[in-house]
């Protein structure tokens, strides 16, 4: 993989996300979707452990990878900021909406659970990441849980990040052999490189985000597939 570069963009938070998250995902949606198919073990375990009849939200559902894990048994609906990715969910017959994770269209305490997998690292400030965490907790019922995964600064696999660089632009390469973009152009003779903004999480940073919230208890935390994760519960009053 091409190396990430430091984020030195002089852009406002919303603009940075618009240009380096939303637009990019809309452009790369179909290629991205093709690479997102194998559910991760911790997530599968979490979803398979839910009681039958549970209803949950997948915030930042991408191509709907997790929406069908327990079809007929556990009901899930997804939201994503990318219209292109939501279109892919729709084609796969999942419930999905276009929505921003900072401002979810759900009533308070509506769901038994929520998941947000590899999403919160795309919010470009601590305040926005906190807001995303608050929204996840708001939409689950007291006693309900949320599972969150975020890219780790500390990686064991092929990727290696500079330990001093938490805010980065990570390249995504669409090979020249793929039809690119949303138009009908055929003459793409080069690999196309896009950059996505990430805030890479240090060890402890993700649990700390949830620990800072009212009525929130961390049930489990760990490291899996190059991500830090937490399972947090909304406490009953």
């Amino acid at each position, binding site marked *: 993989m091409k190396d990430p570069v430091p984020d030195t963009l002089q852009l406002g938070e919303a603009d940075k996300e618009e240009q380096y998250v939303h637009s990019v995902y809309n452009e790369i949606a179909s290629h991205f979707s093709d690479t997102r198919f194998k559910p991760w073990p911790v997530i599968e375990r979490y979803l398979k452990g839910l009681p039958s009849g549970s209803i949950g*939200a997948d915030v930042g559902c991408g191509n709907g990878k997790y929406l069908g894990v327990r079809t007929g048994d556990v009901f899930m609906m997804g939201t994503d900021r990318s219209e292109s990715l939501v279109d892919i969910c729709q084609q796969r017959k999942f419930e999905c909406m276009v929505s*921003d994770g900072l401002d*979810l269209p759900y009533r308070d305490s509506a769901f038994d659970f929520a998941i947000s997998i590899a999403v919160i690292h795309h919010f470009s400030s601590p305040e926005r990441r906190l807001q995303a965490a608050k929204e996840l907790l708001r939409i689950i019922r007291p006693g309900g849980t949320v599972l969150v995964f975020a890219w780790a600064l500390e990686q064991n696999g092929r990727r290696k990040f500079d330990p001093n660089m938490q805010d980065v632009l990570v390249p995504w390469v669409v090979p020249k052999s793929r039809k690119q973009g949303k138009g009908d152009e055929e003459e793409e003779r080069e690999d196309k490189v896009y950059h996505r903004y990430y805030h890479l999480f240090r060890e402890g940073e993700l649990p700390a985000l949830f620990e800072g919230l009212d009525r929130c208890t961390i049930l489990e935390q760990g490291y899996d597939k190059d991500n830090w994760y937490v399972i947090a519960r909304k406490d009953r009053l």
Partner: protein
Amino acid sequence: MRLITHNMLKCHVRNCTDPDKQFPLRFENAELEQIEAERNDEFLVRMIPRLDWPALVKTATALGIALPASIPETPSEDDDFLQKLHTTILETHVKEGSMFCDGCGHEYKITNGIPNMLLAEHEI
């Protein structure tokens, strides 16, 4: 979008906070489609507590779908109720149309079964 999804939605425009008006969102020009789905009674019965029943009845009525005003004592033993519930929340899809907030008037559009719940800058 299935009606079960609609039951989870509320208007999230800034300062639109009256719970009596924020949901259910009111359908206009809704194009419905019935798509059969396998019925799972255990699933239905367990899901009932998560539904806002008055909101569901209000929405169904407006769409011309009959639902009892209150949930029976023992839903698991009421086949007729479970069938109506199943059909309403899981088999009834809104393909096109709009959802309006009775509180602030905001319109959320549904295209090809996908609601767009994004807000404008000034509404957040």
